[in-house]
């Protein structure tokens, strides 16, 4: 469905070095909340890396750093962007926006969009931003929504009143429609029934097989086993781990 992007399967597309994230709450007496530190990670084309670790270990924070939504406190986050590397920790806003347009997609846990825009427009938008004509972008959006079994009568409505599962499929469609080389998926199947879950699993598998580098959070073991090529444990990067833990 999405021709275009194709990578050689061994090329590194994401390179994280010494990444640390600490929140400083200035209005709470400057209390510091360290999330992780010293995190190194590389993800290549065709890999689907599942983040693991207990809740609160910073999986979502890592994803947000990879999308340029959180600013790292230390280290670098580099993405393959066209022929170059772009370091999100140092990039200008317009470089980050361009990277999101062409190089990195993000399916968040909850749909966060402008409330009054019809579903079809929301899903077609990433393609239009790549310069595709409206008719072509709409056509691909229709095909993807059909594949995701979202009832056609909903396509021209804004998703605000949709059920959780319907919203999530809109979110998945919006995140996967453009053939971006790096995909970040935060629980993309959490509110789906078995049938729809399988459809999304298939879509993720296809993106991986065309050479996308995927980093995801999947709590559902079945989904994880179906899409993952390896897992990445955030435990060792916890700042509060004991010396014994660090040594072992």
């Amino acid at each position: 469905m999405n021709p275009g992007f194709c990578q050689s399967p061994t090329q590194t597309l994401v390179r994280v070095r010494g990444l640390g994230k600490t929140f400083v709450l200035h209005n709470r007496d400057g209390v510091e909340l360290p999330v992780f530190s010293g995190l190194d990670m590389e993800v290549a084309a065709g890999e689907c890396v599942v983040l693991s670790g207990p809740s609160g270990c910073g999986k979502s924070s890592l994803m947000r750093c990879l999308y340029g939504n959180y600013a790292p406190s230390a280290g670098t986050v580099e993405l393959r962007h066209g022929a170059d590397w772009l370091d999100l920790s140092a990039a200008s806003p317009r470089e980050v926006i361009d990277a999101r347009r062409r190089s990195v997609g993000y399916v968040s846990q909850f749909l966060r969009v402008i409330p009054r825009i019809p579903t079809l427009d929301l899903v077609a938008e990433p393609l239009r931003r790549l310069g595709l004509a409206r008719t072509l972008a709409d056509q691909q959006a229709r095909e993807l929504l059909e594949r995701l079994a979202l009832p056609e009568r909903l396509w021209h409505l804004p998703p605000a009143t949709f059920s959780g599962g319907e919203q999530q499929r809109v979110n998945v469609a919006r995140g996967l429609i453009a053939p971006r080389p790096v995909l970040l998926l935060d629980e993309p199947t959490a509110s789906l029934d078995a049938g729809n879950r399988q459809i999304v699993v298939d879509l993720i598998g296809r993106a991986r097989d065309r050479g996308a580098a995927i980093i995801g959070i999947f709590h559902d073991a079945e989904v994880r086993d179906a899409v993952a090529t390896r897992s990445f444990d955030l435990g060792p990067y916890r700042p509060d781990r004991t010396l014994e833990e660090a040594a072992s």
Partner: protein
Amino acid sequence: MNDDTLLSVRGVGKRFGARWACRDVSFDLHPGEVLAVVGESGSGKTTLLNLLALRLALDEGSVHYSPRPDGSSPGGLRDLASLSEARQRLLSRTEWGFVDQHPRDGLRMAVSAGANVAERLMLLGGEHYGRLRATARDWMSRVELAEDRIDDLPSRFSGGMQQRLQIARNLVTGPRLVFMDEPTSGLDVSVQARLLDLLRSLVDDLGLACIVVTHDLAVARLLAHRMLVMKDGAVVEAGLTDRVLDDPHHPYTQLLVSSVLMP
């Protein structure tokens, strides 16, 4: 500074008596970029907007703008202070727009809606009356105003309609840079939403660069690619809109973000 920089602001400041209303503000703006300037009243954000739009004189710093290239002048950044007053006036009537917070300040209340929309074109001269009227109709419909209201006075319009009329009046010359001062804050919530949707699609379709002053973080999130957060006349935080709002670093930005009530 990139080659396609539209506006380059360096160390800009304005003093009222002994007090600096804003100081040491620097940023670059590119075609199609929307920048929100947020902060509470008294933070200097409206003063900054007025400085950039040549409505106030600078006490410090410089503003460079890259006029649309034409036969007589090449492109490239020009120091606004070096332009003649006539050239400055022409710029602000053709390549720039300014949407005031109160439509009454930005409209001529004594002339018809159509004349308000066509005024900039008339000032440029040369247009045929029938064509001016057709253009006015066209712009009224683009901002979702009924074309048959073309002969009504703006005072007969609701607040939201007046604001849309003001926007049409500014966009009729195809500006590249539009300044907006709290464009939605005087309106009811439902009217605000409609105006924001309209602004967003116009900015997108026309590839406008905008500087929007607002105290409403939701407006910034919806419209702006980038943000400046101002406090006591200084920029305390700047960056990508969702980064500033989701991961605020400065104590004041953290306070602003955490003070927003979620519906």
